[in-house]
Structure formats: C-alpha cells, structure tokens
C-alpha cells in the first residue's frame, strides 16, 4: 500500500518569501499525487494534482509542484507567499484502485 511522508510539520516564513513544502511518497505502482489546503474550520480544497504528463504541475493561488519519480517526491512551491496562504497543507497519494492516503500535514505560517 502507498504512504505519504510530509517532512516538515511546521514551516514559518515571512511574507513575500519563497516557500517549499516537502512531500515524499512510497508506492509499488503508478500513482496520482495531490496537494490540498485546509484553512481553519474548513474542509480541504484541492490546490493541484499530478495524474500524468508534464512533471511540473501548476495549481491555484500561484502554487506549483514537481513530480520526481526517481526521488519519489512531490514538493509544493510558491515563489512569494502572502499572509492569506497561512493554512495547513496536505499531500496525498492515490493508486489506481482509488485508495487515497494523506500525509500528516504541514502548517504554513506566513508572518508579516
């Protein structure tokens, strides 16, 4: 079965700085990869997903992620963060049998 490791539980950054949230996965089969964002007291919202094709995936709110098969990683990046990006970010992996597994989450805190 697949699993996800989010390497940082908390990432504090200053406004307008770049950020990278790290995600590694393990799976014996081809996978689909996702990043979700969760704002306080809300459900999860899809930021972006990798299904196939180009390994660089662009999502909403200026985020992008790169699928690296050799390193089994799917790190999330944004070149310049805003206060409003403060939230919990979850990486998730799904194999073709529709079994989605989430990482433990990374809390991004953007400081003024």
């Amino acid at each position, binding site marked *: 079965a697949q699993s996800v490791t989010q390497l940082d539980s908390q990432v504090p950054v200053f406004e307008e700085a770049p950020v990278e949230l790290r995600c590694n996965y393990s799976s014996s089969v081809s996978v689909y990869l996702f990043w979700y964002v969760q704002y306080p007291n809300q*459900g*999860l919202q*899809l930021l972006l997903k990798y*299904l196939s094709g180009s390994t660089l995936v662009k999502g909403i709110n200026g985020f992008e992620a790169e699928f690296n098969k050799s390193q089994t990683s799917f790190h999330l990046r944004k070149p310049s963060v805003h206060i409003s990006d403060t939230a919990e970010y979850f990486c998730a992996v799904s194999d073709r049998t*529709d079994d*989605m*597994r989430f*990482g433990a*989450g990374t809390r991004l805190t953007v400081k003024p």
Partner: protein
Amino acid sequence: EAGVAQSPRYKIIEKRQSVAFWCNPISGHATLYWYQQILGQGPKLLIQFQNNGVVDDSQLPKDRFSAERLKGVDSTLKIQPAKLEDSAVYLCASSLRGGQGEQFFGPGTRLTVL
C-alpha cells in the same frame, strides 16, 4: 454549484453516548467518502461508497461505527457507543467518480467526546 454539506458542525457528547453525522454530497457525484481527522494528523479514510454500495470500509471500526447511503445520495455516519479517542473532525467528501477524480470536501463535523 452547491458544495458538500455536513451537519452538525460541532457536537459535544459524553463517552458511551451515540452520535450521528449527516452528509449531502454535490449533486450527481457517485462516490462519497467519510474521513476521520484527528488533531495533528491527516484525514484517514473510514468508508467509501459508490452510489449506495460500499467500496471500501477496511478502516471502519465496525464494532462501533456504521454508515449508510440510502438511495445513493445523502449519507449518515453513526458512532455507538462513543469513546474518548473518537474525538476528531469527521469529513465528508464526494467525487464524480473514484480514482483520479477530484474529491470535494465538506466543512466537517468537529466531535468532542468527554
């Protein structure tokens, strides 16, 4: 389009009591999921429905948890009796189809068991 609706948003009960949560998925979405999200952890799938049939309930504690999706639309998740460790946010999600289809999440129900 309307999103996934859940109620109640918050619930506080004492251990050994029963509780039920309700979810109304996005219209036309065949697949419905219930997740448990314990504080500080990612969501864990409890059960997945395809229309009104169960696809995966391998992580559902069946001695106390039950779920149904009558008529393939709304769903209810019940806990009877509740334990302290059941304190969590219960998220409902739906998708047009399983697999690579995007899952749309409701706001969740925060359960506190005292």
